[in-house]
């Protein structure tokens, strides 16, 4: 027998485009439509526009491989997983799956708010394809994992959303299929629980099971998967070892050149009166660059205008690694003195500028986001992935050892070596 777990051959899914108003056809419409233009309906029974959510996708997954599926929203990842888990039927092509499939497209499917935690564990387990005896056997483990022992006989409608998600994930995590299809379920709960979920996922991967893993969290993808396929606009464009694929994915699809300029049609109407103009990354010489040296200070500049005055406005930046881990968040009025000085910002053209000191960031790729808001009142504008830039470590501390340094920062610390 072949050692393949999944074999996908030229798979494609076509969707009809429904306009919002016409989402559900009513019988009357169908009848009048058919009467009015019988010929058209015979020739083109769908009568609506179509598009391919996914097309010409072929790949194979060997038994025991953990394969990542990455791509932007709308690239067809979910469609692929839905077809492989038999929720939707492909329009063309064929896929073969050898082994029992467990798919987690969402946690807590079928949970009923009126039922208790215990009852929902059994119900959800059965929906996911577990036998009652299997659930009996794992019940204590599931409850322990979810950390909600004392509420297990309370209806889940009284749960906090965190408890609900924990219980839901716990059931899913104890499914033991030969092939696991996972979609973004790790984005649940608090940081502590997320770590636990990731741990569980790597256990699953380590047990030699075949896993198909879709996520936007690139650090999770690199940690958990060996290989990745990249989907772009419904086509598979790459299959490569994960680190390579993640790098490729990250370097495509973001703005380049160290500067993000917003055109007027990109600015949402809710952001009025705040109008973003540009976000720039500049080196010590004041040049806009997409690569800076870690040993030089770098300047970040948000250029914007206000069409009318805003009271209490703060304009800030998020710095993230391209893998999605936050480095820091900072606002232009973090200093109380600055805040009282600029409490009311009149209409006009502004620049909020800050400098990141030299010897702070480690080598790597960073994403810069921007946020303009009034605390607890209104968020005018936000773009979490406005600019991407590189930090080049030439001259950084410890460069005489050729090794990658762990961590986001690479500070030059004042070491003293004392002999006593």
């Amino acid at each position, binding site marked *: 027998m072949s050692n393949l777990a999944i074999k996908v051959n030229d*798979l494609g899914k076509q*969707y009809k485009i429904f306009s919002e108003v016409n989402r*559900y*056809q*009513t*019988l*009357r419409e*169908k009848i009048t439509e058919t009467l009015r233009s019988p010929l058209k309906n015979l020739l083109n029974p769908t009568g609506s526009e179509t598009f391919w959510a996914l097309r010409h996708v072929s790949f194979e997954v060997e038994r025991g491989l953990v394969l990542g599926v990455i791509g932007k929203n709308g690239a067809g990842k979910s469609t692929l997983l*839905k*077809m*492989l*888990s*038999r*929720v*939707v*039927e*492909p*329009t*063309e*092509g*064929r*896929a*073969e*799956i*050898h*082994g*029992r*499939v467990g*798919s987690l*497209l*969402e946690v807590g*499917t*079928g949970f*009923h708010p*009126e*039922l208790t935690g215990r*009852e929902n564990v*059994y*119900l959800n387990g*059965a*929906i*996911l*394809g577990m*036998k*009652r005896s*299997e659930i009996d*056997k*794992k019940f204590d483990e599931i409850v322990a994992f979810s950390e909600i022992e004392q509420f297990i006989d309370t209806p889940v409608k009284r749960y906090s959303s965190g408890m609900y998600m924990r219980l839901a994930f716990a059931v899913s995590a104890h499914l*033991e299929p*030969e092939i696991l299809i996972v979609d973004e379920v790790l984005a649940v709960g608090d940081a502590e629980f997320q770590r636990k979920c990731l741990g569980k996922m790597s256990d699953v991967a380590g*047990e030699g099971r075949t896993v198909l893993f879709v996520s936007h969290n690139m650090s999770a993808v690199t940690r958990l998967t060996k290989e990745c396929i990249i989907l772009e606009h419904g086509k598979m464009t790459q299959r490569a070892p994960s680190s390579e694929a993640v790098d490729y994915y990250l370097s495509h699809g973001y703005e380049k050149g160290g500067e993000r300029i917003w055109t007027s049609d990109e600015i949402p109407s809710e952001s009025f009166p705040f109008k973003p103009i540009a976000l720039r990354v500049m080196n010590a010489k004041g040049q806009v660059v997409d690569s800076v040296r870690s040993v030089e200070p770098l300047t970040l500049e948000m250029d914007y205008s206000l069409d009318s005055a805003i009271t209490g406005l703060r304009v800030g930046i998020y710095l993230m690694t391209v893998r999605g881990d936050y480095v820091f968040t900072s606002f232009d009025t973090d200093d109380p003195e600055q805040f009282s000085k600029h409490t009311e910002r009149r209409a006009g053209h502004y620049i909020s500028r800050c400098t990141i000191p030299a010897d702070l960031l480690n080598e790597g790729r960073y994403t810069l986001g921007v946020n303009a808001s009034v605390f607890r009142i209104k968020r005018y504008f936000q773009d979490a992935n406005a600019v991407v830039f590189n930090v080049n470590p030439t001259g950084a501390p410890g460069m005489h050892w050729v090794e990658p340094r762990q961590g986001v920062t690479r500070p030059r610390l004042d070491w003293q070596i004392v002999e006593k």
Partner: protein
Amino acid sequence: MKTDVIETVKKPETVIIQPMKGLVALNLRDLWIYRELVYFLTWRDLKVRYKQSVLGVLWAIIKPFLAMVVFTVFFGNLAKLPSDGLPYPIWSYTGLLPWEFFAAALSVSARSMLTSGNMVSKIYFPRIIVPLSSVFANLIDFLIAFVILIGMMFFYHITPTINMLWLPAFMLLAIITALGVGLWFSALLVMYRDINYMLPFITQLWMFISPVVYASSIVPEKWRVLYSLNPMAGVVEGFRWALLGTQQSISPLMIAISSVIALTLFISGLFFFRRMERVFADMI
């Protein structure tokens, strides 16, 4: 942990995923694999239905009982409709039992695909389990309401005859009819939400073409065959024959016609549902 892993290691099953064409096979194998889900969904429906209601399962009795009282007053006492020579209350209650089961099962199962939309668009399981389990959940209500009938038989001194052995067969006929119509409607409802508004009206009309408040003996002889095309006519008259021993309103031909129609509805419903199953997740 380790022992679990060993247990699940068996010959891997292979699933082929590709577009289905033409009349598709029913895939009963999957239904068997997921049989426990039928049980769990039935159990959920029952549990949820009576949670937070003061009278709980008593509702299963109250509904047909009140209907019997109203029918007895208006159709029995005032309109003086014939009841095969039996006291009108027990005669109508015997008919109401399978009718209430059918009406409730139909209305729940027809809407079931829509109410389970979230599940259907996220997880694979044989979709037929959804309408199937909603019909089964109503079976429990039927059994509870049946207890009252036993009490009434004591009250009216009606001794059951050997005919009673046929009762499960008529119940099966009622289940098959409810499932058949439920399958058709639940699949159609996914595409045409109009069905949702038509349903109460259809059920009401259906009751009046079924011998619930009147005996089918009042239907002229030449129309009897046409009348029997309604499988519920056979079910209701069958119930009365099996439990109360009525003779005038029932004929073997009627039961035969009703059974054939019920089976046709059921089998065609299975295939229609299976055919539409492919697009449910896209439509919901």
